[in-house]
């Protein structure tokens, strides 16, 4: 069968990779990695205790970096980080000599795993829409990002309008349904956007809508805060009234979300580039007596670093992007370093499902451009985004009591030559490169078998009557059969029993 050509070639290459040279030793826990269908992946088991031994541990916490350190996990939480730790009986031991361990990486600006559109761009302000309603836990990019050491991400509404939707912080629990990815306890966030995008500078739209200028963007935001205060006043009046037959005010989901900002219960994550608009939004916040939680992109943040620090806003920026729009002509890769140097809480983000697979290397750019110390640079993608997202009580550093979200790297996490070997969330191993490599031939074999099966159905003679053997699923044709055995589960008759086995979760 000639059509199998690309596969057989691919297969040879995969087999060559199937024996990883430097897999972490001693990890016997099953992970369900390597399958591109989220729904087929069981939640990995959570060993009662895990100890990772002899690693270089970058804690992103008060313990700094430990050489030859141990990490002890119990019940999905970090119990201890230190040297020569005693593990409880039955603990899963992972010898990580020569390896590095870091907290799970966090992407403070992601549009992955969102279904049905990332922008509700129709109206100027859409604070009522929520990313949590549209998390797509089946997006294979979740798995690909796990493979790059990412464990959490802030899923963002787009930047089409000045007040966009409510953000959702998720953990990359590949295989779980959407609700189980969502970190419901994270500090609530909302997307704002300033500059060229909300003023529609770069799109071909038939009908222009307000605003078309930065001053218009400012007023569209101020107007909503004023409206939210009016809304509160109406409710206060109503609640104070003793008249039981008083017509109540209408609930308004948009204004309720905006009121949460004013009450400090929902943090603004604002897309921004230029220094002028960054100052503008901080002044609006100060006029309404709250703090902007975090500026996103904030590529001219270095120009107003002192103002950002004084206001108390975080800055989540690109490591080195520039010159793709006029408003980023002054972007510099030293942005992170200058802001960090002037006491702004800095993170690096991806804004890209591709880039999110290598945030450790983005952190390395803070070392390249601006000599940020390596441990501080790593915090740009661990502790700092955790603080910006209000989840630093649970993730972002390897400290006792926090969630056991960590990555085992083949080497220095800031080195371009290092790869993530294992990625753990809540003390469960969600990615294992060795398992992934080992599973590839099974995935290939399954594909081949299904294609053969489909073809055998297709080529079935029209006239065969009932009672013939036509209904039996075909075996894969021998020419296309790979050298290894296809997985039983996929090679077996697709009975309901097998089906259930496939979805047993």
């Amino acid at each position: 069968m000639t059509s199998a050509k690309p596969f057989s070639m691919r297969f040879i290459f995969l087999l060559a990779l199937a024996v990883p040279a430097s897999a972490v030793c001693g990890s016997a826990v099953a992970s369900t990695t390597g399958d591109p269908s989220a729904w087929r992946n069981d939640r990995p088991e959570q060993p009662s205790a895990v100890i990772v031994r002899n690693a270089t541990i970058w804690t992103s916490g008060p313990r700094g970096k430990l050489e030859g350190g141990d990490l002890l996990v119990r019940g999905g939480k970090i119990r201890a980080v230190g040297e020569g730790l005693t593990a409880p009986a039955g603990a899963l031991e992972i010898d990580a000599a020569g390896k590095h361990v870091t907290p799970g990486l966090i992407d403070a600006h992601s549009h992955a795993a969102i279904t049905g559109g990332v922008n509700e761009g129709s109206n100027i302000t859409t604070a009522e829409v929520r990313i949590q309603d549209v998390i797509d836990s089946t997006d294979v990019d979740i798995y690909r990002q796990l493979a790059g050491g990412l464990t959490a991400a802030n899923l963002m509404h787009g930047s089409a309008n000045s007040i966009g939707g409510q953000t959702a912080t998720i953990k990359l629990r590949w295989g779980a349904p959407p609700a189980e990815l969502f970190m419901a306890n994270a500090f609530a966030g909302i997307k704002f956007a300033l500059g060229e995008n909300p003023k529609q500078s770069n799109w071909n739209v038939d009908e222009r809508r307000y605003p078309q200028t930065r001053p218009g963007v400012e007023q569209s935001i101020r107007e909503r805060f004023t409206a939210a205060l009016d809304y509160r006043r109406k409710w206060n009046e109503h609640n104070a009234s003793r008249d039981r037959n008083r017509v109540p005010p209408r609930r308004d989901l948009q204004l309720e979300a905006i009121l949460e900002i004013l009450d400090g219960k929902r943090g603004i994550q604002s897309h921004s580039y230029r220094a002028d608009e960054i100052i503008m939004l901080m002044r609006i916040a100060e006029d309404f007596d709250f703090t902007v939680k975090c500026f996103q992109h904030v590529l001219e943040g270095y120009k107003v670093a002192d103002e950002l620090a004084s206001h108390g806003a975080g800055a989540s920026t690109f490591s080195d992007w520039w010159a793709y729009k006029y408003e980023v002509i002054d972007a510099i890769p030293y942005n992170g370093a200058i802001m960090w140097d002037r006491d702004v809480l800095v993170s690096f983000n991806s804004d890209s499902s591709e880039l999110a697979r290598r945030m450790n290397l983005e952190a390395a750019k803070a070392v390249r451009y601006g000599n940020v110390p390596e441990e501080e640079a790593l915090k740009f993608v661990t502790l700092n985004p955790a603080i910006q997202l209000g989840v630093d009580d649970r993730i972002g550093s390897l400290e006792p009591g926090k969630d056991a979200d960590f990555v085992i790297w083949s080497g220095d996490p800031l080195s371009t030559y290092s790869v993530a070997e294992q990625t753990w969330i809540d003390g469960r191993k969600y990615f294992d490169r060795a398992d992934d490599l080992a599973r590839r031939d099974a995935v290939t074999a399954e594909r081949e078998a299904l294609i053969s099966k489909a073809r055998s159905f297709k080529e079935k003679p029209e006239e065969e009557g009932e009672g013939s053997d036509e209904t039996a699923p075909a075996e894969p044709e021998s020419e296309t059969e790979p050298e290894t055995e296809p997985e039983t589960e996929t090679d077996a008759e697709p009975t309901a029993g097998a089906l259930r086995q496939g979805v047993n979760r």
Partner: protein
Amino acid sequence: MSRSLTLLCCLALLPVSGAFAATTAYVGATVHPVSSPAIESATILVEDGKIVAVGTEVEIPADAVSFDMTGVHLYPGFVHPLSVLGLTEISSVRGTRDFSEIGEVNSDIRAEVAFHADSELLPVAMSGGILTAHVAPTGGVFRGTSAAVKLEGWNWEDMTMASGVGAHVAYPRLRARTGGFNPPTEEEVKERKEKALEALNETLDDTKAYATAMAAALEGKAPKPEYDAKLAALVPVLDGRMPLFLYADELSQIESALDWAKEREISNLVLVTGPDAAYLGERLAADGVRVLLNGVLARPDRDWEPYDAAYTAAKRLHEAGVEFCIGDGGDGFDAAHVRNLPFHAAMAAAHGLPHDVALRSVTLSAAELLGIGDRVGSLEPGKDATFIATNGDPLEIKTQILGAWIEGEKIDFSLDRQKRLHEKYDNRPRPDGDQPAVEGLREQGKG
């Protein structure tokens, strides 16, 4: 930290452009010629912009100016194999886009004539170690011819190292891509494909006829045909003097493109492609097709492909024996970020491509593919003194680039807009009594 600071200080003393001596010796460096293994404590001797000697036993002429480069690593400058650098400034601003002409047959278009010598993007690229680039137009089926340029110079004529490096041709897609913004429908793709194939074949037929008539005229056997710039530009492709850069990304598209090139007897072929090409390694090697591999950092096209399918593409091509270099995609966004080219190669190295091959894939292999391997891409006697100084392996992001030279002339990093802005705002007076967190932070970028 202190070590690299010392280096920075030393390098700061080096003369910058306009003040270089005829003979210059860079002494005591670890030299990485790329064409051969690294040499510790070596000297590079440069005369009139050319390397005249490399090694540990180099005799330094008495009148030479010497620089102590102890602790510094010298590498050839990176060669960017395909970009619209210099042809755009801000790709979203229409007035700054000079890379994409309309129409299907633009074979007469020459990229170099719009190369903007004072583009703000160039000094930034050079600070990142990119010293040579190959710039090509992107519009139409026949896109025009490309040029190899050095990134420092007075104008495009001065900066062009080679014109007519290749004729660039986009082979049509056979099927719609999925995803992305407004992907075309299957029908649109089919229509586009038929239109493009028609343009491809008709234009080459016409070129053949034109070349025949022209040859006959030269031999005095026929009157001279009316000049046709679009066809004339393609004549060197027919006889193999100029390589055809054929663009095809997706597997079936690549296979069809290769079939087409074979049928059209294109003898000098460069495939501009993506990770799918790695599925065809054996064929590419057997046919001697050279490959310009983009998309090393791309996500796999298909959800069932291994997560690192693109990362490993270079390794697979290498193992199949394919001659290749690595690019970054080369679109308008990429033009501003060419300095990340070495990190594409680094990702391939992290996934099985031997380190020396990875380094070569963004230096000498690229230069050879572009036909400028005798000028740049390695540090050897007779070649241009186009090199960079670093404090370590330049495929490592953490490594810093301390200096750069093009044809022996030191690049003035202070012309880098980003370094200027850095310096300006790093020196902004701080709020009362606040001190820099890291000693030397503001030294960065003053090399």
